[in-house]
């Protein structure tokens, strides 16, 4: 469904992605792990055109991703994104955040958008917070609203950019369980994460990225439990046993 072929990207003189080739099948959950600055987030941002890429090709269901072309709007409505810092619209209530896209981008009738918006908030466990503005919600609640906002576009896939990294540790579980439910329901997901437990339990495929290249990839359990590459082994040892 999502294909990346030899994708290169540099910021000025710094090469961030040096030939990324990967594919994500429908209903597959792919977790991208790796150290900070390795290019994980850049991959997500290239997939939905928040960043342009210099070389190679990215396609979503056969349509080429080009951040400078009008076609990017259609791709973005099919591939939603959830950010590390939520990026909810603070001047709108939780419900208004969720129905913003359906109402103003997809031009859905208001009643229909509201009904589905409420259902989505209920799905992420926030039915009672529909009229609350984001600054009055906890980080975990905000991220769940952000997930509902992404779902409201009825996307074919959702990209998650470190969705739990900005959360208090005790709030991480709520967000991960919503994500696990999505995965169980067959949503195609690409997740940049440091939550190795989530990756091990939920991911079909894990990519370990370092220095802008995929160092190792494979089934979640094999990459996380029996990493082959010394760099992956070193990274996982440090993440799982920091002391």
């Amino acid at each position, binding site marked *: 469904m999502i294909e990346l072929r030899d994708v290169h990207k540099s910021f000025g003189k710094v090469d961030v992605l040096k030939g990324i080739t990967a594919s994500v099948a429908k209903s597959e959950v792919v977790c991208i792990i790796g150290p900070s600055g390795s290019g994980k987030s850049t991959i997500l941002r290239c997939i939905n055109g928040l960043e342009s890429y210099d070389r190679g090709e990215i396609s979503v269901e056969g349509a080429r991703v080009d951040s400078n072309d009008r076609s990017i709007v259609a791709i*973005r409505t099919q591939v*939603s994104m959830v*950010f590390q*810092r939520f*990026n909810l619209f603070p001047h709108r209530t939780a419900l208004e955040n969720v129905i913003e*896209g359906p109402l103003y981008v997809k031009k859905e009738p208001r009643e229909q958008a509201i009904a589905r918006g409420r259902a989505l908030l209920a799905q992420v466990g926030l039915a009672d917070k529909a009229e609350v503005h984001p600054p009055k919600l906890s980080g975990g609640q905000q991220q769940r609203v952000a997930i509902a906002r992404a779902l409201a576009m009825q996307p074919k896939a959702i990209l998650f950019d470190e969705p739990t990294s900005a959360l208090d540790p005790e709030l991480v579980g709520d967000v991960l369980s919503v994500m696990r439910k999505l995965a169980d329901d067959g949503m195609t997901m690409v997740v940049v994460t440091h939550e190795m437990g989530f990756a091990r339990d939920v991911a079909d495929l894990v990519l370990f990225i370092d220095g802008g290249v995929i160092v190792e990839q494979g089934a979640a359990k094999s990459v996380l439990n029996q990493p082959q590459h010394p760099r992956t082994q070193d990274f996982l040892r440090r993440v799982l046993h920091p002391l």
Partner: protein
Amino acid sequence: MQKFFHDAVEFVPILLQGVWLTIVVTVGSLLLSTVLGLVWALMRVSGIGILVGVSAALINVIRGIPIIVLLFYIYFVMPDFGIALSALQAAIIGLGIAYSAYQAENFRAGIEAIDKGQIEAAQTIGMGWWLTMRRVVLPQAVRIILPPYGNIMIMMLKDSSQASTITVAELALQGKLIASSTFKNTSVFTLVALMYLTMSIPLILLVRHFENKANRK
């Protein structure tokens, strides 16, 4: 003091005619400067090279010319190009253009203060540039823009007196005319000053209200 009140009773009705023109000039040029300022600011943040360049150049040219020269130019020079305006029209257009530069810089600062993540979130739900501005950026930028906007309103109220230089009989010019024909300078200009102050006070309170509201959020 008694003499002052006696003068006040005599001159206030004439000065009020000037107050009316002061309000017309201020409100007219405020509206014009707001619309133009928003256009310049949106051009400036559009990311389109030519629009950014044109807007930056315009703002610098406007900022670099004194208001009074701009007024003279519009009122005395434009007729040479076949554009003859009444003094009132010229005053509103001149002040409106002059202040559009300050409005634009204020709007731009407000727009640029909005977190980039907000724009990205709007893009990821498929919003284009204009929809992102209208639904996401501008409603949030307003909070930041309003307090300085109120200050610009106060400055414009006072600078509307420059319209007197092109014969608009607003408050300052009315005062000058009465003073020069009656020689009652103290009474007349005290009244003029008090009237400007009276008009400024609601605006000053409005600015304070905006500031409190912005700080609360």
